[in-house]
């Protein structure tokens, strides 16, 4: 094939992976269930864990959307790496900033 370009690293399929509507529907249902759960859990007193649980559920929901609605599960390594690096720098911003606040001798913590 003379058209096969020798571009080295990224392999891209000729066609995008088509995700079936059934998957989408399943994800929708799960997302709605999680939404209900997070609301319900917020009415239970878990102390600091309220926030933890709420964020954990949000993270799961995010993962579902990213993996399926946004097709990351079916995409190239490059795209996956892109997403991961974005999230990583996002956490750098948050964690290093908060680390400063937490470690102050007397801040407002």
């Amino acid at each position: 094939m003379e058209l096969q370009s020798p571009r080295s690293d990224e392999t891209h399929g000729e066609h995008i992976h088509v995700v079936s509507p059934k998957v989408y529907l399943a994800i929708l249902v799960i997302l709605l269930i999680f939404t209900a759960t997070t609301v319900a859990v917020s009415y239970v007193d878990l102390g600091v864990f309220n926030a933890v649980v709420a964020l954990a559920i949000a993270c799961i929901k995010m993962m579902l959307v990213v993996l399926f609605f946004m097709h990351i599960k079916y995409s190239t390594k490059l795209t996956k790496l892109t997403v991961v690096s974005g999230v990583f720098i996002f956490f750098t911003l948050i964690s290093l900033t908060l680390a400063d606040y937490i470690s102050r001798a007397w801040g407002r913590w």
Partner: protein
Amino acid sequence: MSTSTLVTLPDQSTAKIPKVNFLNQENGLLSWILTLDHKRIAILYLITTVFFFMIGGAAAAVIRLELLTPAGDLVAADTYNKLFSIHGIIMVFFFLVPIAPAVLGNFLIPLMIGARDVALPRVNLLSWYLFVIGGCFELYMIIFGGVDTGWTFTTPLSTHYVNTHVVGAAMGIFIAGFSSILTGINFIVTIHKMRAPGMTWFRLPLFIWSFYATSIIFVLATPVIAIAMVLIVLERVVGIGVFDPARGGDPILFQHLFWFYSHPAVYVMILPGMGVISEVVSTFSRKRVFGYTAVAFSSVAIAVFSFFVWAHHMFIMGISNYSALVFSLMTMLVAVPSAIKVFNWSATMYKGSIHFDTPMIYTLGFLGLFTIGGLTGVFLATLGMDIHLTETYFIVAHFHYVMVGGMVSALMAGIHFWWPKITGRMYPESLGRLAAIILFIGFNLTFFPQFILGYLGMPRRYWSYPPEFQVLNVFSSAGATILAIGYLLPFLYLPWSITYGEIAGSNPWKATGLEWQTQSPPLMENFPEIPIMDHEAYDYDWLERHQQEVASV
């Protein structure tokens, strides 16, 4: 191999300006301002950023005049504050951050990787327009009274205590920020997806690696200053916000957000220069770059590590001592890749066959000045030392050494190096060398005394100062005059050369990059047909064989 200077290559004496090239392929103002061609957009950027450089330079001139005498006698205190604020804002956000990526990067990335254009030409044009709109905000702000917060917009000064055009300045930066973001996205996509066949990652010129690193910073850091600017504007408009200590906010939070961008941004202001230096050192030593992989990865390392060091600008500003430790350590780490690069460039010259054309002279200047600037940066990163040095002229000297001595020298090297490619003509070589030498001398005279001033304790952003600092300040101002001449010379001979310069031919420096294997100036679509890369970068043997082939055809 010929021993004559490179400028008189056989190729050159017979060369003609190609009949069709990107400069004359289409005509009329509209064909320029609506162009999608990356080379034309680069030229649009060149014109606008140089315009902003003049504004910033004019402000610098008045600053140095004012500092000639200890008393604040030339301009009012307010005016002085506006001058250095405008100088900093314009020089950083509207000159040095955009000029290298948007001019050199735009022009060269597609040519170097063998593509017809950047991946998203329309986005490219859009980013120029955003830049111009942002610039208009700044011009409006300057004309209608300026801003006096310093380029760092320290809260709560900028939000509650000054009544100058902070909103205008912040909006300008916000909009221009999106221009940077779009440029960054465009470059990353282009480098990933548009490389010519055979152009593997490790065959890319090192220039591309450093622009890739720059683009990472553009994409990940710029949005944070965008939101910081939005919060400043909101706080000024509604009177409450997260930065206001009187209403429960925290001004140091602003520092975190600001420097999260602005520290990586200083590497935006040096990485492209490092790319240029790699090309120039190699070409004029006629030798492959020593340790390609190390130089390539150190660019990426600088970009990645630059995200973990921002709080070194806040060592005495009330961050926790433990945080200060971590950030100081990370700063030490980020300095190492720069050191690797400097040594690798030096080693590239070893056993080379060195030509001292203008770009090379600028490069030699870069190596010395960047090393001094970088090492004094390490002084500042050393926690205890920073207590004494911070907020003095030592910092001013540090960052002018890296930004002006380093980056502007590299930029000059780059512009001179690719000028024949951009315009098809040579500039007067002797004037070029003269300007480079004047720049070097003027620069050192201007900014070296500031290191001493800083250690003596002269604070920065001072409109008047105690008389014992005067002598060094006069040296500095005298140096600035020489520096200005060094800048003005290219302003004269480069435009002159567009019409009167010798015709350059496609590869006047006998360089190996793909951009030199096409005509100068190139066609709109860069290459008559997409080239295939079948050799390493900086392969001078390949070049020789290739040229013989061409000659024998």
